[in-house]
């Protein structure tokens, strides 16, 4: 009976494993979302679900997000072939057969187990209570059995019956993926308990001689460590009983595996995919391949289980060294990418950065993954840039830059998707301007739209010099102008300022002239603000706004922020053309407005920056005017003008 009971329990565990795993992941995501307080994420285990509005992670299905924004996402995002992704991971348990040479040391580790208990977790209390409860109930049961011996028989019968029926039904819906722990395994994993000494010994052996059979055992141990908690009931997993051992295995394997494999396969640091492919036919590949595979897959398991940002970043950093090995396993690398992209979009900067570097590494090493990688990360970017607030501006900015990096890996290819995406953006804009319906307008006036425009603007800025991208540039400019045209009025000034920023960026990268001032006149208009609300200082941060809330519209802060941002944008514009012959004319009309504003404005904090801008522009204008009075070339002499600019720059 005991055996049956065990089997049943195992079944139960397996059934619930998925939920446990899910819970783990959920917890992890919550850790990631929260700015970490306290040393470890342990305390946050029951973190509330309140912060749902935070950007969703990649793993979530984008389709679930109802509303128009989702449809926008669907409109904008690239299709991914999800079906292919899960097809390959069903490889059987990668347990490596161990050599009998490999010794197990059952050393004095008894004290260690006690030592271990200093690490407490939130469930300990509950576990203790449950233990007591179980004891109580068992007592009751035993009493009943004593009282009525017939019942014992009955119970026995019922158990075997119900078990059998369950077995039958279970056999049908057993998921094929994790049949690892079943008794049918021809290569029964070893369930000797791993001790610290054993691991130490193995580590030394492996470090000395990579080919030693201990490597297999060590990798098996690594596998068990990585799966710990997921396959908790399988005996092999229960081999690890102390935290020390766990730590040892993980750190050693992660830090040394790459070197070991490189030594075994005899490959240098800068191999590319082709070389790995060539290796595959080699003889030694056959022997080492299972080890590599085990290592990579188990590392992925570990990645998907871990919840702490720092450990994750550590694992990723270590794993990055052996990124090239993934090229032998396309399916595994797809799974890797999925995990990586999820981690990339999560809030922690370091983790994001290390996962991005890994993504980039993988994408540049495995060209066939690039498409998937780009599409997935673009969609993730869209999903996570749905909402922008003061907290995540930097993060989204970082994501944009990362994505630009990825797209710049293969510009030729990226241009196609850029063209597609820009075409979609354009179509949405046209639709909105045609119908002028609220729904359609809201699609344009959304962060996702603006952020994807921003992405392409940056992409253009980074690559304009090296590639001929003029057609893309003009359609992006059209979008920018169209959006500005579609949303006039003071409420949309933040949006407009963003567009102006983008135009400035484009202008500086392409050395083209954009009439920036025409978009800024609204900001420079004098507005009478109510003077009364001095008490409450509400900070208006334009970078996290598209539309100003109505209550702020008349406030002084808004007015100030408006003018200051306009001054920023204008000075960027002036700075670009300050050496040009026609700078005095460029400045003429804005200067008239600025002077008028200066005269009208009563707010001292505004008058000073305005005055400074006016003075500087005036000064620069005088310099240019003086200089050009002395020259003799005409406006149509382009080369002389260029040299004029050059001379001024030197001065």
């Amino acid at each position: 009976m005991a055996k049956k009971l065990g089997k049943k329990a195992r079944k139960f565990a397996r059934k619930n494993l998925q939920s446990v795993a899910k819970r783990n992941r959920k917890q992890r995501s919550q850790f990631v979302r929260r700015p970490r307080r306290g040393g470890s994420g342990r305390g946050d285990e029951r973190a509330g679900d309140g912060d749902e509005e935070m950007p969703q992670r990649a793993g979530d299905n984008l389709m679930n997000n109802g509303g128009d924004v989702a449809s926008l996402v669907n409109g904008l995002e690239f299709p991914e072939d999800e079906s292919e992704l899960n097809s390959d991971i069903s490889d059987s348990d990668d347990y490596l057969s161990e050599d009998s040479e490999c010794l197990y040391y059952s050393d004095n580790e008894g004290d260690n187990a006690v030592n271990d208990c200093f690490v407490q977790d939130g469930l300990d209390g509950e576990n203790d209570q449950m233990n007591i409860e179980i004891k109580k109930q068992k007592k009751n049961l035993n009493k009943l059995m004593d009282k009525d011996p017939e019942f014992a028989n009955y119970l026995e019968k019922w158990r075997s019956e119900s078990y059998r029926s369950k077995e039958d039904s279970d056999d049908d819906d057993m998921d094929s993926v994790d049949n690892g722990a079943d008794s049918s395994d021809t290569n029964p994993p070893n369930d000797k308990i791993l001790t610290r000494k054993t691991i130490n010994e193995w580590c030394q052996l492996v470090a000395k001689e990579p080919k030693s059979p201990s490597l297999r055992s060590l990798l098996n141990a690594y596998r068990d460590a990585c799966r710990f908690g997921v396959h908790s009931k399988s005996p092999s997993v229960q081999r690890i009983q102390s935290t020390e051992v766990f730590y040892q295995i993980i750190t050693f394997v992660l830090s040394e595996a790459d070197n070991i494999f490189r030594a075994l396969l005899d490959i240098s640091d800068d191999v590319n995919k082709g070389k790995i492919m060539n290796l595959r036919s080699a003889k030694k590949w056959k022997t080492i391949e299972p080890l590599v595979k085990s290592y990579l897959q188990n590392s992925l398991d570990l990645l998907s289980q871990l919840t702490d940002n720092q450990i994750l970043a550590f694992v990723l950093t270590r794993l990055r060294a052996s990124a090239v090995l993934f090229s032998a396993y396309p399916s595994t690398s797809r799974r890797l990418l999925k995990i990586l992209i999820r981690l990339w979009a999560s809030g922690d900067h370091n983790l994001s950065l290390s996962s991005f570097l890994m993504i980039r590494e993988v994408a540049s090493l495995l060209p066939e993954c690039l498409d998937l990688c780009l599409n997935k990360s673009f969609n993730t970017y869209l999903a996570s840039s749905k909402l922008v607030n003061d907290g995540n501006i930097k993060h989204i900015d970082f994501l944009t830059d990362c994505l630009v990096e990825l797209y710049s890996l293969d510009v030729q290819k990226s241009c196609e998707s850029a063209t597609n995406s820009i075409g979609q953006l354009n179509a949405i804009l046209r639709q909105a301007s045609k119908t002028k319906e609220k729904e359609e307008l809201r699609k344009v006036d959304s962060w996702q739209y603006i952020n994807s425009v921003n992405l392409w603007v940056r992409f253009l800025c980074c690559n304009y010099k090296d590639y001929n991208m003029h057609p893309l540039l003009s359609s992006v400019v059209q979008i920018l102008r169209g959006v500005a045209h579609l949303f006039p009025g003071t409420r949309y000034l933040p949006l407009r300022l963003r567009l102006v920023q983008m135009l400035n960026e484009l202008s500086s990268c392409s050395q083209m002239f954009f009439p920036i001032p025409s978009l800024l006149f609204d900001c420079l208009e004098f507005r009478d603000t109510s003077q009364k609300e001095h008490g409450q200082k509400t900070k208006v941060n334009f970078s996290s706004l598209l539309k100003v809330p109505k209550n702020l519209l008349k406030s002084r802060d808004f007015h100030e922020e408006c003018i200051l941002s306009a001054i920023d944008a204008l000075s960027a514009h002036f700075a670009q053309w300050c050496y040009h012959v026609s700078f005095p004319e460029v400045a003429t009309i804005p200067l008239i407005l600025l002077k008028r504003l200066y005269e009208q404005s009563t707010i001292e904090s505004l008058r000073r920056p305005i005055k400074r801008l006016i003075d500087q522009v005036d000064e620069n204008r005088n310099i240019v005017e003086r200089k050009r009075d002395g020259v003799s070339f005409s406006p149509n002499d382009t080369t002389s003008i260029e040299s004029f600019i050059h001379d001024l720059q030197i001065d």
Partner: protein
Amino acid sequence: MGKNSKKKNKVILPPQLPPEVDDDEVVVSDEDVEFFRGNEGHARALARLDRKSIDSYVTRVAHHDDDEVERLYEERERRRKAAEALRPKSNKDEDLEVDPVDALPVKTLQGELVYNNAKKPRFDEISNGPESKSKDKGADAKQATQRGEQKARSKETKGDGRLPNVQPQIEAPNGKLQSKVLEEVEEELSAEELFEKKKAQLAEIGMSMLEDPESNIRSLNDMLNICNDKDQKVVKLGLTSLLAVFRDIIPSYRIRQLTEKELTVEVSKDVKKMRYYEYTLLRSYKAYLQKLISLEKQPNFYNVAVRCMCTLLDTAPHFNFRESILASVARNLSSPDDAVRSLFVNEGKHRGEATIEAVRLIADHVKLNDCHLHPDSIGVFLSLRFDEDIGKDDSEEEKGRSKKKKQRQNQEVPKQLPVSDKKKAKQELISKAREEVDAELRAVSFTLDAKERRRIQKETLSALFETYFRILKHTLSTSNSSHYIIIRGNAINVSTDGSHPLLAPCLEGLGKFSHLIDLDFMGELIACLKKLSGHTDHHSQILHDNTLSVSERLQCCIVAYKVWRSNLEALNVDLQDFFVQLFNLILEYRPDRDRGEVLADALKTLLWEGKHQDMIRAAAFIKRLATFALSFGSAEALSALITLKHLLQKNSKCRNMLENDSGGGSMSCLVAKYDPEAKDPYLSGALASVLWELSLLQKHYDSSVSSMASNILSMANLNPTQNPVPISIANPLEAYRDLSMERELSKPANKVPPLNCKKKRRSKDFVALSPTVLQGSDFLADGDELKEKLQNHFAVLRGISENERLRAELNHTLSSINLYKEYKKQKKRVKSKAGKKKVARA
């Protein structure tokens, strides 16, 4: 009139009957009797139908209060007597009694469900039930019109004779049973079905109306009654279907009220029929209009009612009651329908009479509302058409004709000389006859003679300009009423919206009809416009706060210029001030606030089309436009550049500005140094400046702007008489429209051609991320921290798995204990069974 009452009585009367005939004196014509005899089969079929319909009828009434029915009958009798007094409107009270329930189907004793699809003819059927019922049936079955006519005739013959036979059946004893059944059925029918039914009914009536309006003219009443329904949807449907019917059946002439004398004269049957038809049509039309006018005041029906009226006005401006339609349409000009516009455009339909009426009505409307109306209410004037040549033409024509006549006579005279007197007399006779025919033709045909047309046009014009001047004066008085001292430079007020809603269309209209303005008004108008455009005395330090927006002021300049141009000879006005205004307004323009089209139009009218500019002014404008192009969007920039180029072409001396001779422009004038902010073009010193802007505009992102800039720059190398190859022939306004954002967004998206990359970069370099960001990448946690974290992780996992295990065990134990109860029960059952068995055995 007698016919009026019939409608209320619901006694279906033969439509052919002349109005004088009283209801009861139905004359059965021989023809009808003959027809009935000849088609006995039909008659029998009708008779078969009769019973059923009567049954159904009876049941329907039976569940009503009998007293009520009686009362209704009495009332009907009374009304018939007081026929004269009744008006079409007054049948509302009776209609209210028409219960929607009546549209429900009725279960007869035979168990058949009978649908009563005409709700209104309930009372008709009481009187001559079989016929109307059968008619309904006929409609149901979509019988041919001929059939319908037959029935109508048979009805005619039988109608009143049957009446007494039918009435007794109302008191049929099966009432109680029926009513019970009825109540159930009533509940089952939902409002939706009712709605559907009414819809179907409307459609049927409408179809029959369109098929044969003459015989079905009375159905108009039914439709009108449907419009009194409680259900708003039904009412709306009714209104629109009536609209469709009227649109179709309204004749192309106006129906004239018959004079007493005419009524007394005996007329043929056809004429009588015709008169009846016209009469009914007119009456229903009137009722319909009254309904519409009353509904227009209700917000729920506003849209429908206005649309109906507009469509009616559009299709039948010649028909009766045009005045009332016009009056209410004029009040609702801001609605999206273009009825009045089409009225103005298609004057042929109503000989221009409606135009003058409409213009007058609008003028009154503007006056009443003190110029605070929707801009559209004036905008319709723009589609007015004035035949400029009417006056001249006709007089000339007359002259010409008389000349020709004279010539002809002159030619003829010598020829006639030899002709005998007899022939002459014959010719005179012929010409006389021709004149007579001409006169008759004119009387019959739709065209008015020139005099009449001229009169109408004159009146229209005066009403039109009265309105326009009223608006101008109003604007002037309100804008000047509030002057106060302001800081210099703030001549424009930002908040202009809504203060002068009518000014923009008014100015537009003035511009359009500038050539028709009487010369006497001209001076005053120009002065008025000058004030409105914001012109002030240069010496005064106090500026009037001009509340007009930049676009409105620009429009003033445009209008003034147009007026001046179209009356060039007669006018002695200095337009210099308007140019100064334009010169300054260019700087005040703001892309989103002001209408760019107006600016482009001003550039086009004043500068592009302007005949000659003196050199200094042209130079000032050239410089200002170039500067303007640097700060504004591509559409504005291009229109400015086109104007600039045109000015350069016209004033070849200004081309010196393209070249940088030592010491600036060679043409030194009074002012040696250029002042970009000058208020007066003559004092700006623009001739001394160089158009450096163009060199930067060559780098403009918009290819059309940059190519235009290079095109202009290329003029520098040409000699003054040469002009560069024109790259676009568009005028500033067209160029603006072409490049404006709306247009650009509506253009089909241009396909981005596949890119060809110039070079490949080594993909290992980072392009977007700064190295400082990347520095933190090789992050490695220090050992202890990492260790602790990993251990924590492990502990958590272990805790979770332990928890799982324990929970499973607990559950197992608990279920075992629960099983004990089950076990006990089973045991008991076994025991009791055993006990029973024992008992049984015993």
